[in-house]
Protein backbone atom coordinates (compact mmCIF):
# COMPACT_ATOMS: atom_id res chain seq x y z
CA UNK A 1 0.00 0.00 0.00
CA UNK A 2 3.00 2.33 0.64
CA UNK A 3 3.71 2.27 -3.06
CA UNK A 4 0.21 3.37 -4.08
CA UNK A 5 0.09 6.08 -1.41
CA UNK A 6 3.44 7.50 -2.58
CA UNK A 7 2.12 7.68 -6.14
CA UNK A 8 -1.05 9.45 -4.98
CA UNK A 9 0.88 11.99 -2.91
CA UNK A 10 3.30 12.73 -5.76
CA UNK A 11 0.36 12.98 -8.18
CA UNK A 12 -1.53 15.44 -5.97
CA UNK A 13 1.63 17.45 -5.43
CA UNK A 14 2.18 17.74 -9.19
CA UNK A 15 -1.45 18.70 -9.84
CA UNK A 16 -1.52 21.35 -7.10
CA UNK A 17 1.85 22.77 -8.13
CA UNK A 18 0.67 23.04 -11.71
CA UNK A 19 -2.50 24.78 -10.49
CA UNK A 20 -0.53 27.23 -8.32
CA UNK A 21 1.92 28.02 -11.11
CA UNK A 22 -0.90 28.51 -13.63
CA UNK A 23 -2.79 30.79 -11.26
CA UNK A 24 0.44 32.68 -10.55
CA UNK A 25 1.14 33.27 -14.24
CA UNK A 26 -2.49 34.30 -14.89
CA UNK A 27 -2.33 36.75 -11.98
CA UNK A 28 0.97 38.22 -13.20
CA UNK A 29 -0.36 38.81 -16.69
CA UNK A 30 -3.81 40.02 -15.70
CA UNK A 31 -4.51 43.77 -15.34
CA UNK A 32 -4.46 45.07 -11.76
CA UNK A 33 -6.53 45.07 -9.63
CA UNK A 34 -7.18 41.37 -10.14
CA UNK A 35 -10.67 40.21 -11.01
CA UNK A 36 -12.65 38.57 -8.16
CA UNK A 37 -12.61 35.24 -10.07
CA UNK A 38 -8.81 35.22 -10.18
CA UNK A 39 -8.47 36.18 -6.50
CA UNK A 40 -10.96 33.47 -5.61
CA UNK A 41 -9.11 30.93 -7.77
CA UNK A 42 -5.85 31.59 -5.91
CA UNK A 43 -7.64 31.34 -2.56
CA UNK A 44 -9.23 28.07 -3.60
CA UNK A 45 -5.92 26.55 -4.68
CA UNK A 46 -4.22 27.67 -1.45
CA UNK A 47 -7.04 26.10 0.55
CA UNK A 48 -6.58 22.88 -1.46
CA UNK A 49 -2.95 22.72 -0.36
CA UNK A 50 -4.07 22.91 3.27
CA UNK A 51 -6.86 20.35 2.78
CA UNK A 52 -4.60 17.88 0.98
CA UNK A 53 -1.96 18.30 3.68
CA UNK A 54 -4.51 17.63 6.43
CA UNK A 55 -5.89 14.58 4.61
CA UNK A 56 -2.38 13.22 4.14
CA UNK A 57 -1.61 13.58 7.84
CA UNK A 58 -4.90 11.86 8.73
CA UNK A 59 -4.01 9.08 6.28
CA UNK A 60 -0.77 8.34 8.07
CA UNK A 61 -2.71 7.84 11.30
CA UNK A 62 -4.86 5.26 9.49
CA UNK A 63 -8.15 4.29 11.06
CA UNK A 64 -7.65 6.63 14.04
CA UNK A 65 -6.89 9.56 11.78
CA UNK A 66 -9.81 8.94 9.42
CA UNK A 67 -12.39 8.43 12.16
CA UNK A 68 -11.34 11.53 14.09
CA UNK A 69 -11.01 13.68 10.96
CA UNK A 70 -14.49 12.79 9.69
CA UNK A 71 -16.04 13.20 13.15
CA UNK A 72 -14.62 16.74 13.13
CA UNK A 73 -15.92 17.30 9.60
CA UNK A 74 -19.35 16.19 10.82
CA UNK A 75 -19.09 18.64 13.71
CA UNK A 76 -18.28 21.57 11.42
CA UNK A 77 -20.96 20.57 8.90
CA UNK A 78 -23.65 20.07 11.53
CA UNK A 79 -22.82 23.43 13.08
CA UNK A 80 -23.27 25.12 9.70
CA UNK A 81 -26.52 23.30 8.99
CA UNK A 82 -28.12 23.99 12.37
CA UNK A 83 -27.04 27.65 12.30
CA UNK A 84 -28.94 28.13 9.08
CA UNK A 85 -32.21 26.52 10.13
CA UNK A 86 -34.94 27.73 12.43
CA UNK A 87 -34.83 26.59 16.04
CA UNK A 88 -36.48 27.71 19.28
CA UNK A 89 -35.39 27.90 22.88
CA UNK A 90 -37.16 24.63 23.64
CA UNK A 91 -34.91 22.84 21.10
CA UNK A 92 -31.82 23.42 23.24
CA UNK A 93 -31.51 19.87 24.59
CA UNK A 94 -32.19 18.18 21.25
CA UNK A 95 -29.56 20.37 19.59
CA UNK A 96 -27.07 19.61 22.36
CA UNK A 97 -27.79 15.89 21.93
CA UNK A 98 -27.07 16.08 18.20
CA UNK A 99 -23.56 17.39 18.91
CA UNK A 100 -22.85 15.65 22.18
CA UNK A 101 -24.44 12.23 21.67
CA UNK A 102 -25.29 11.56 18.02
CA UNK A 103 -21.86 12.46 16.56
CA UNK A 104 -19.74 10.54 19.12
CA UNK A 105 -22.05 7.52 19.09
CA UNK A 106 -22.26 7.27 15.28
CA UNK A 107 -18.46 7.43 15.00
CA UNK A 108 -18.07 4.93 17.81
CA UNK A 109 -20.24 2.59 15.73
CA UNK A 110 -17.94 3.22 12.76
CA UNK A 111 -14.92 2.55 14.95
CA UNK A 112 -16.26 -0.75 16.30
CA UNK A 113 -17.59 -1.74 12.84
CA UNK A 114 -21.03 -2.47 14.30
CA UNK A 115 -22.69 -2.39 10.89
CA UNK A 116 -26.20 -3.41 12.04
CA UNK A 117 -26.61 -0.41 14.33
CA UNK A 118 -24.47 1.94 12.23
CA UNK A 119 -26.98 1.90 9.35
CA UNK A 120 -30.12 2.33 11.47
CA UNK A 121 -29.09 4.39 14.49
CA UNK A 122 -29.87 7.74 12.85
CA UNK A 123 -32.60 6.83 10.32
CA UNK A 124 -34.57 4.77 12.85
CA UNK A 125 -33.73 5.65 16.45
CA UNK A 126 -32.89 9.33 16.11
CA UNK A 127 -35.67 9.79 13.58
CA UNK A 128 -38.25 8.61 16.09
CA UNK A 129 -36.78 9.80 19.38
CA UNK A 130 -35.78 13.35 18.51
CA UNK A 131 -39.30 14.53 17.57
CA UNK A 132 -40.58 12.67 20.63
CA UNK A 133 -38.29 14.74 22.85
CA UNK A 134 -39.38 17.92 21.08
CA UNK A 135 -43.06 16.97 21.57
CA UNK A 136 -42.44 16.22 25.24
CA UNK A 137 -41.21 19.81 25.61
CA UNK A 138 -44.69 20.90 24.59
CA UNK A 139 -43.66 23.66 22.16
CA UNK A 140 -45.64 23.04 18.94
CA UNK A 141 -44.82 26.29 17.13
CA UNK A 142 -43.55 25.38 13.60
CA UNK A 143 -43.11 21.84 14.92
CA UNK A 144 -42.82 19.95 11.64
CA UNK A 145 -40.37 22.48 10.22
CA UNK A 146 -38.14 22.25 13.29
CA UNK A 147 -38.05 18.45 13.56
CA UNK A 148 -37.56 18.05 9.79
CA UNK A 149 -34.62 20.44 9.83
CA UNK A 150 -33.05 18.56 12.75
CA UNK A 151 -33.52 15.27 10.94
CA UNK A 152 -32.00 16.60 7.75
CA UNK A 153 -29.13 18.13 9.69
CA UNK A 154 -27.96 14.84 11.19
CA UNK A 155 -28.70 12.78 8.07
CA UNK A 156 -26.55 15.05 5.91
CA UNK A 157 -23.83 16.07 8.33
CA UNK A 158 -23.42 12.94 10.43
CA UNK A 159 -25.02 9.90 8.81
CA UNK A 160 -23.87 10.49 5.23
CA UNK A 161 -20.42 11.80 6.18
CA UNK A 162 -19.77 8.82 8.47
CA UNK A 163 -19.97 6.48 5.45
CA UNK A 164 -16.53 7.69 4.35
CA UNK A 165 -14.57 6.26 7.31
CA UNK A 166 -17.03 3.32 7.37
CA UNK A 167 -15.36 2.17 4.12
CA UNK A 168 -12.52 1.02 6.37
CA UNK A 169 -14.78 -1.58 7.95
CA UNK A 170 -15.64 -3.36 4.68
CA UNK A 171 -14.10 -6.75 4.07
CA UNK A 172 -13.20 -6.99 0.39
CA UNK A 173 -11.56 -10.38 -0.38
CA UNK A 174 -8.05 -9.95 -1.75
CA UNK A 175 -8.00 -6.29 -0.66
CA UNK A 176 -7.40 -6.80 3.06
CA UNK A 177 -5.58 -4.02 4.89
CA UNK A 178 -5.81 -1.65 1.94
CA UNK A 179 -9.23 -0.08 2.58
CA UNK A 180 -7.67 3.35 3.12
CA UNK A 181 -7.13 3.37 -0.63
CA UNK A 182 -10.91 3.08 -1.15
CA UNK A 183 -11.32 6.25 0.91
CA UNK A 184 -8.62 7.94 -1.17
CA UNK A 185 -10.30 6.80 -4.41
CA UNK A 186 -13.72 8.16 -3.38
CA UNK A 187 -12.40 11.50 -2.16
CA UNK A 188 -10.06 12.09 -5.12
CA UNK A 189 -12.67 11.15 -7.70
CA UNK A 190 -15.55 13.13 -6.17
CA UNK A 191 -13.54 16.22 -5.24
CA UNK A 192 -11.71 15.94 -8.56
CA UNK A 193 -15.07 15.91 -10.31
CA UNK A 194 -16.03 19.16 -8.51
CA UNK A 195 -12.82 20.78 -9.70
CA UNK A 196 -13.19 19.39 -13.25
CA UNK A 197 -16.80 20.59 -13.46
CA UNK A 198 -15.61 24.03 -12.29
CA UNK A 199 -12.85 24.09 -14.94
CA UNK A 200 -15.06 22.84 -17.79
CA UNK A 201 -17.80 25.22 -16.70
CA UNK A 202 -15.46 28.24 -16.64
CA UNK A 203 -13.90 27.33 -20.01
CA UNK A 204 -16.89 26.15 -22.03
CA UNK A 205 -19.98 26.83 -19.90
CA UNK A 206 -22.86 28.33 -21.88
CA UNK A 207 -26.10 26.53 -21.09
CA UNK A 208 -27.27 26.82 -17.51
CA UNK A 209 -28.23 23.50 -15.98
CA UNK A 210 -30.73 24.85 -13.50
CA UNK A 211 -30.79 28.66 -13.32
CA UNK A 212 -33.35 28.65 -10.48
CA UNK A 213 -31.16 26.61 -8.19
CA UNK A 214 -27.52 27.26 -9.00
CA UNK A 215 -26.41 29.87 -11.55
CA UNK A 216 -22.87 28.44 -11.71
CA UNK A 217 -23.75 24.92 -12.87
CA UNK A 218 -23.77 24.41 -16.64
CA UNK A 219 -24.41 21.45 -18.95
CA UNK A 220 -20.91 21.81 -20.39
CA UNK A 221 -19.38 21.73 -16.92
CA UNK A 222 -21.46 18.74 -15.91
CA UNK A 223 -20.78 16.60 -18.97
CA UNK A 224 -17.11 17.53 -19.23
CA UNK A 225 -16.62 16.99 -15.51
CA UNK A 226 -18.39 13.64 -15.43
CA UNK A 227 -16.56 12.25 -18.46
CA UNK A 228 -13.20 13.46 -17.18
CA UNK A 229 -13.76 12.13 -13.68
CA UNK A 230 -14.88 8.74 -15.01
CA UNK A 231 -11.56 8.63 -16.89
CA UNK A 232 -9.80 9.67 -13.68
CA UNK A 233 -11.56 6.76 -11.96
CA UNK A 234 -10.28 4.32 -14.58
CA UNK A 235 -6.79 5.78 -14.22
CA UNK A 236 -6.93 5.19 -10.46
CA UNK A 237 -8.22 1.62 -10.73
CA UNK A 238 -4.74 0.37 -9.71
CA UNK A 239 -5.42 1.45 -6.11
CA UNK A 240 -8.84 -0.29 -5.97
CA UNK A 241 -10.29 -3.79 -6.15
CA UNK A 242 -12.04 -2.69 -9.39
CA UNK A 243 -11.08 -3.30 -13.02
CA UNK A 244 -10.53 -0.08 -15.05
CA UNK A 245 -14.01 -0.37 -16.57
CA UNK A 246 -15.63 -1.02 -13.21
CA UNK A 247 -13.67 1.84 -11.65
CA UNK A 248 -14.90 4.29 -14.26
CA UNK A 249 -18.51 3.10 -13.80
CA UNK A 250 -18.27 3.44 -10.01
CA UNK A 251 -16.64 6.86 -10.40
CA UNK A 252 -19.42 7.92 -12.78
CA UNK A 253 -22.14 6.95 -10.29
CA UNK A 254 -20.32 8.59 -7.34
CA UNK A 255 -19.73 11.81 -9.27
CA UNK A 256 -23.32 11.96 -10.53
CA UNK A 257 -24.46 11.64 -6.92
CA UNK A 258 -21.92 14.31 -6.01
CA UNK A 259 -23.38 16.64 -8.62
CA UNK A 260 -26.88 16.06 -7.25
CA UNK A 261 -25.57 16.71 -3.74
CA UNK A 262 -24.26 20.09 -4.84
CA UNK A 263 -27.61 20.84 -6.46
CA UNK A 264 -29.59 19.95 -3.32
CA UNK A 265 -27.19 21.96 -1.16
CA UNK A 266 -27.68 24.95 -3.48
CA UNK A 267 -31.46 24.58 -3.22
CA UNK A 268 -31.28 24.61 0.59
CA UNK A 269 -28.99 27.65 0.60
CA UNK A 270 -31.28 29.45 -1.83
CA UNK A 271 -34.29 28.67 0.33
CA UNK A 272 -32.50 30.05 3.41
CA UNK A 273 -31.26 33.12 1.53
CA UNK A 274 -27.51 32.59 1.82
CA UNK A 275 -24.72 32.11 -0.70
CA UNK A 276 -22.38 29.94 1.35
CA UNK A 277 -22.83 27.66 4.33
CA UNK A 278 -20.04 29.35 6.26
CA UNK A 279 -16.52 30.76 6.08
CA UNK A 280 -14.33 27.97 7.39
CA UNK A 281 -12.41 27.37 4.15
CA UNK A 282 -11.07 30.51 2.49
CA UNK A 283 -12.30 30.84 -1.09
CA UNK A 284 -14.63 27.85 -0.87
CA UNK A 285 -17.09 28.89 1.85
CA UNK A 286 -18.03 26.55 4.66
CA UNK A 287 -17.35 22.91 5.33
CA UNK A 288 -20.62 21.91 3.65
CA UNK A 289 -19.76 23.92 0.53
CA UNK A 290 -16.72 21.69 0.10
CA UNK A 291 -18.32 18.40 1.20
CA UNK A 292 -21.83 18.59 -0.27
CA UNK A 293 -20.86 16.30 -3.15
CA UNK A 294 -19.04 13.83 -0.90
CA UNK A 295 -22.09 13.71 1.38
CA UNK A 296 -24.29 12.39 -1.43
CA UNK A 297 -21.66 10.16 -3.00
CA UNK A 298 -20.36 8.39 0.13
CA UNK A 299 -23.37 6.25 1.15
CA UNK A 300 -24.03 5.11 -2.43
CA UNK A 301 -20.35 4.31 -3.03
CA UNK A 302 -20.26 2.45 0.31
CA UNK A 303 -23.25 0.28 -0.58
CA UNK A 304 -22.08 -0.42 -4.13
CA UNK A 305 -18.76 -1.71 -2.80
CA UNK A 306 -20.46 -3.59 0.01
CA UNK A 307 -23.03 -5.25 -2.27
CA UNK A 308 -20.81 -6.19 -5.19
CA UNK A 309 -17.35 -6.63 -3.69
CA UNK A 310 -17.68 -7.93 -0.13
CA UNK A 311 -18.62 -11.42 0.95
Amino acid at each position, binding site marked *: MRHEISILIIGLFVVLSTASITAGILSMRAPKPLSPTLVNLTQRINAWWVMVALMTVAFFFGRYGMTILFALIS*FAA*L*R*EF*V*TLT*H*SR*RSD*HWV*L*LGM*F*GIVIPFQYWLVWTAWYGLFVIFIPVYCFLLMPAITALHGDTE*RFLERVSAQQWAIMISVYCVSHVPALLTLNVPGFEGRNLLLVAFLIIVVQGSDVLQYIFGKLFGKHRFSPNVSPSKTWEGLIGGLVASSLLGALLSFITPFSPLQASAVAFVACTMGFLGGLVASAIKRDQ*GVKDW*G*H*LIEGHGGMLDRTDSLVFAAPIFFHIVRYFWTV
Partner: protein
Amino acid sequence: MSKLALRTYTLLQTVTSVGLSAMAWAVTGVRPIWSGSQPSDRQRIYFANHTSHGDFILLSACLSETERAKTHAIAAAEYWGKSRLRRFIAEDMLSSVLISRTWTSEAEHPISIMLSVLEQGHSLIIFPEGTRNTSDELLPFRSGLYNLSMARPDVELIPCWIENMSRVLPKGQFLPVPLLCRVVFGAPVAVAPGEERRAFLQRAREALLALDPRPDRDD
Protein backbone atom coordinates in the same frame (compact mmCIF):
# COMPACT_ATOMS: atom_id res chain seq x y z
CA MET B 1 -0.32 42.27 47.11
CA SER B 2 3.10 40.65 46.97
CA LYS B 3 5.00 40.56 43.69
CA LEU B 4 4.51 36.82 43.28
CA ALA B 5 0.79 37.01 44.00
CA LEU B 6 0.43 39.83 41.50
CA ARG B 7 2.26 37.83 38.85
CA THR B 8 0.12 34.76 39.49
CA TYR B 9 -2.93 36.99 39.26
CA THR B 10 -1.89 38.47 35.89
CA LEU B 11 -1.02 35.02 34.62
CA LEU B 12 -4.43 33.71 35.68
CA GLN B 13 -6.16 36.53 33.80
CA THR B 14 -4.09 36.02 30.65
CA VAL B 15 -4.65 32.26 30.67
CA THR B 16 -8.40 32.64 31.19
CA SER B 17 -8.70 35.30 28.54
CA VAL B 18 -6.76 33.31 25.91
CA GLY B 19 -8.50 30.08 26.94
CA LEU B 20 -11.98 31.59 26.76
CA SER B 21 -11.35 33.17 23.38
CA ALA B 22 -10.07 29.85 22.03
CA MET B 23 -13.14 28.13 23.43
CA ALA B 24 -15.45 30.77 21.97
CA TRP B 25 -13.86 30.12 18.60
CA ALA B 26 -14.07 26.33 18.92
CA VAL B 27 -17.76 26.46 19.80
CA THR B 28 -19.02 29.33 17.64
CA GLY B 29 -16.27 29.94 15.06
CA VAL B 30 -16.80 33.60 15.99
CA ARG B 31 -15.80 36.19 13.36
CA PRO B 32 -15.75 39.96 13.74
CA ILE B 33 -17.35 41.95 10.93
CA TRP B 34 -16.00 45.48 10.98
CA SER B 35 -18.65 47.50 9.23
CA GLY B 36 -18.25 51.20 9.95
CA SER B 37 -15.37 50.99 12.41
CA GLN B 38 -11.94 49.34 12.48
CA PRO B 39 -9.96 47.58 15.20
CA SER B 40 -8.07 50.28 17.07
CA ASP B 41 -6.23 50.94 20.31
CA ARG B 42 -8.43 53.98 20.99
CA GLN B 43 -10.33 54.07 24.21
CA ARG B 44 -13.83 52.82 23.48
CA ILE B 45 -17.16 51.84 24.97
CA TYR B 46 -18.52 48.83 23.12
CA PHE B 47 -22.29 48.56 23.59
CA ALA B 48 -24.11 45.42 22.54
CA ASN B 49 -27.36 43.53 22.62
CA HIS B 50 -27.58 41.14 25.55
CA THR B 51 -29.18 37.69 25.46
CA SER B 52 -26.65 35.40 27.10
CA HIS B 53 -23.82 35.14 29.62
CA GLY B 54 -21.58 34.29 26.69
CA ASP B 55 -22.08 37.69 25.05
CA PHE B 56 -19.06 39.55 26.36
CA ILE B 57 -16.79 36.51 25.96
CA LEU B 58 -17.73 36.45 22.28
CA LEU B 59 -17.26 40.19 21.93
CA SER B 60 -13.87 40.21 23.62
CA ALA B 61 -12.77 37.20 21.56
CA CYS B 62 -13.06 39.53 18.55
CA LEU B 63 -10.57 42.02 20.04
CA SER B 64 -6.80 41.71 19.93
CA GLU B 65 -4.99 40.28 22.95
CA THR B 66 -3.72 43.71 24.04
CA GLU B 67 -7.15 45.31 23.61
CA ARG B 68 -8.79 42.50 25.54
CA ALA B 69 -6.44 43.02 28.48
CA LYS B 70 -7.68 46.57 28.94
CA THR B 71 -11.36 46.10 28.12
CA HIS B 72 -13.73 45.35 30.97
CA ALA B 73 -17.29 44.13 30.77
CA ILE B 74 -19.81 45.71 33.13
CA ALA B 75 -21.85 43.06 34.92
CA ALA B 76 -24.64 43.09 37.48
CA ALA B 77 -23.53 42.63 41.09
CA GLU B 78 -26.98 41.18 41.86
CA TYR B 79 -26.04 38.10 39.85
CA TRP B 80 -22.25 37.95 39.78
CA GLY B 81 -21.70 39.11 43.34
CA LYS B 82 -24.08 36.57 44.85
CA SER B 83 -21.47 34.05 45.94
CA ARG B 84 -17.72 34.07 46.42
CA LEU B 85 -17.22 31.75 43.46
CA ARG B 86 -19.28 33.90 41.10
CA ARG B 87 -17.47 37.02 42.25
CA PHE B 88 -14.12 35.29 41.72
CA ILE B 89 -15.11 34.22 38.20
CA ALA B 90 -16.45 37.66 37.29
CA GLU B 91 -13.83 39.91 38.84
CA ASP B 92 -10.65 37.85 38.96
CA MET B 93 -10.93 35.50 36.03
CA LEU B 94 -12.89 37.62 33.55
CA SER B 95 -11.69 41.01 34.89
CA SER B 96 -15.20 42.39 34.59
CA VAL B 97 -16.48 45.22 36.77
CA LEU B 98 -19.56 44.72 38.94
CA ILE B 99 -22.19 47.38 39.41
CA SER B 100 -25.26 47.22 41.59
CA ARG B 101 -28.77 48.09 40.47
CA THR B 102 -29.58 49.06 44.06
CA TRP B 103 -26.63 51.29 44.95
CA THR B 104 -26.70 53.17 48.20
CA SER B 105 -23.63 55.44 48.40
CA GLU B 106 -22.22 57.80 45.78
CA ALA B 107 -19.13 55.54 45.44
CA GLU B 108 -21.37 52.65 44.43
CA HIS B 109 -23.08 54.71 41.75
CA PRO B 110 -22.75 52.73 38.50
CA ILE B 111 -21.69 55.77 36.52
CA SER B 112 -18.91 56.66 38.99
CA ILE B 113 -17.61 53.09 38.86
CA MET B 114 -17.62 53.06 35.06
CA LEU B 115 -16.01 56.49 34.85
CA SER B 116 -13.24 55.38 37.21
CA VAL B 117 -12.44 52.50 34.81
CA LEU B 118 -12.36 54.93 31.90
CA GLU B 119 -10.05 57.20 33.90
CA GLN B 120 -7.44 54.41 33.97
CA GLY B 121 -7.43 54.59 30.18
CA HIS B 122 -9.33 51.31 29.83
CA SER B 123 -12.27 50.44 27.59
CA LEU B 124 -15.71 49.12 28.52
CA ILE B 125 -18.24 46.61 27.25
CA ILE B 126 -21.76 47.53 28.31
CA PHE B 127 -25.21 46.13 27.66
CA PRO B 128 -27.55 49.13 27.68
CA GLU B 129 -30.66 46.95 27.75
CA GLY B 130 -29.70 46.39 31.39
CA THR B 131 -30.56 42.70 31.49
CA ARG B 132 -30.42 39.54 29.40
CA ASN B 133 -33.23 39.85 26.92
CA THR B 134 -35.40 36.81 26.21
CA SER B 135 -37.72 38.47 23.70
CA ASP B 136 -37.08 38.95 19.99
CA GLU B 137 -37.18 42.76 20.27
CA LEU B 138 -34.27 44.89 21.44
CA LEU B 139 -35.31 46.46 24.79
CA PRO B 140 -35.24 50.26 25.35
CA PHE B 141 -31.81 51.50 26.43
CA ARG B 142 -31.02 52.68 29.94
CA SER B 143 -29.51 56.11 30.32
CA GLY B 144 -25.97 55.04 31.34
CA LEU B 145 -24.78 55.25 27.75
CA TYR B 146 -25.88 58.90 27.51
CA ASN B 147 -24.36 59.85 30.86
CA LEU B 148 -21.04 58.21 30.01
CA SER B 149 -20.89 59.93 26.67
CA MET B 150 -21.66 63.33 28.21
CA ALA B 151 -18.94 62.86 30.84
CA ARG B 152 -16.33 61.47 28.42
CA PRO B 153 -17.08 62.73 24.89
CA ASP B 154 -13.54 61.71 23.85
CA VAL B 155 -14.34 57.99 24.22
CA GLU B 156 -15.83 56.35 21.12
CA LEU B 157 -19.17 54.57 21.46
CA ILE B 158 -19.17 51.51 19.19
CA PRO B 159 -22.40 49.57 18.60
CA CYS B 160 -21.79 45.79 18.43
CA TRP B 161 -24.45 43.37 17.24
CA ILE B 162 -23.88 39.89 18.67
CA GLU B 163 -25.54 37.34 16.46
CA ASN B 164 -27.03 33.97 17.44
CA MET B 165 -25.80 33.91 21.04
CA SER B 166 -29.37 33.55 22.32
CA ARG B 167 -29.47 30.20 20.52
CA VAL B 168 -26.00 29.09 21.61
CA LEU B 169 -26.49 29.72 25.33
CA PRO B 170 -30.04 30.81 26.18
CA LYS B 171 -30.83 32.33 29.57
CA GLY B 172 -31.11 29.54 32.14
CA GLN B 173 -28.88 27.03 30.30
CA PHE B 174 -25.25 26.35 31.02
CA LEU B 175 -24.16 24.05 28.16
CA PRO B 176 -23.63 25.85 24.84
CA VAL B 177 -24.88 24.48 21.51
CA PRO B 178 -22.18 24.96 18.86
CA LEU B 179 -23.59 27.40 16.31
CA LEU B 180 -21.76 29.91 14.13
CA CYS B 181 -21.73 33.45 15.52
CA ARG B 182 -20.62 36.82 14.24
CA VAL B 183 -20.12 40.13 15.97
CA VAL B 184 -20.85 43.14 13.75
CA PHE B 185 -19.03 46.33 14.83
CA GLY B 186 -20.73 49.49 13.55
CA ALA B 187 -19.76 53.12 13.11
CA PRO B 188 -19.24 55.15 16.31
CA VAL B 189 -22.24 57.00 17.73
CA ALA B 190 -21.87 60.32 19.57
CA VAL B 191 -24.23 62.73 21.35
CA ALA B 192 -24.98 65.61 18.98
CA PRO B 193 -24.74 69.16 20.40
CA GLY B 194 -27.89 69.89 22.36
CA GLU B 195 -29.28 66.41 21.77
CA GLU B 196 -31.72 65.34 24.41
CA ARG B 197 -31.17 62.13 26.41
CA ARG B 198 -34.14 60.17 25.04
CA ALA B 199 -33.49 61.10 21.46
CA PHE B 200 -29.87 60.01 21.75
CA LEU B 201 -30.72 56.68 23.39
CA GLN B 202 -33.28 56.01 20.67
CA ARG B 203 -30.71 56.84 17.99
CA ALA B 204 -28.06 54.60 19.61
CA ARG B 205 -30.59 51.77 19.80
CA GLU B 206 -31.42 52.16 16.11
CA ALA B 207 -27.71 52.22 15.22
CA LEU B 208 -27.34 48.85 16.97
CA LEU B 209 -30.48 47.40 15.40
CA ALA B 210 -29.28 48.45 11.94
CA LEU B 211 -26.35 46.03 12.32
CA ASP B 212 -28.57 42.95 12.65
CA PRO B 213 -27.73 41.08 9.44
CA ARG B 214 -30.86 38.92 9.54
CA PRO B 215 -33.37 39.74 6.86
CA ASP B 216 -36.81 40.68 8.21
CA ARG B 217 -38.16 37.51 9.64
CA ASP B 218 -41.68 36.31 10.04
CA ASP B 219 -41.18 35.00 13.58
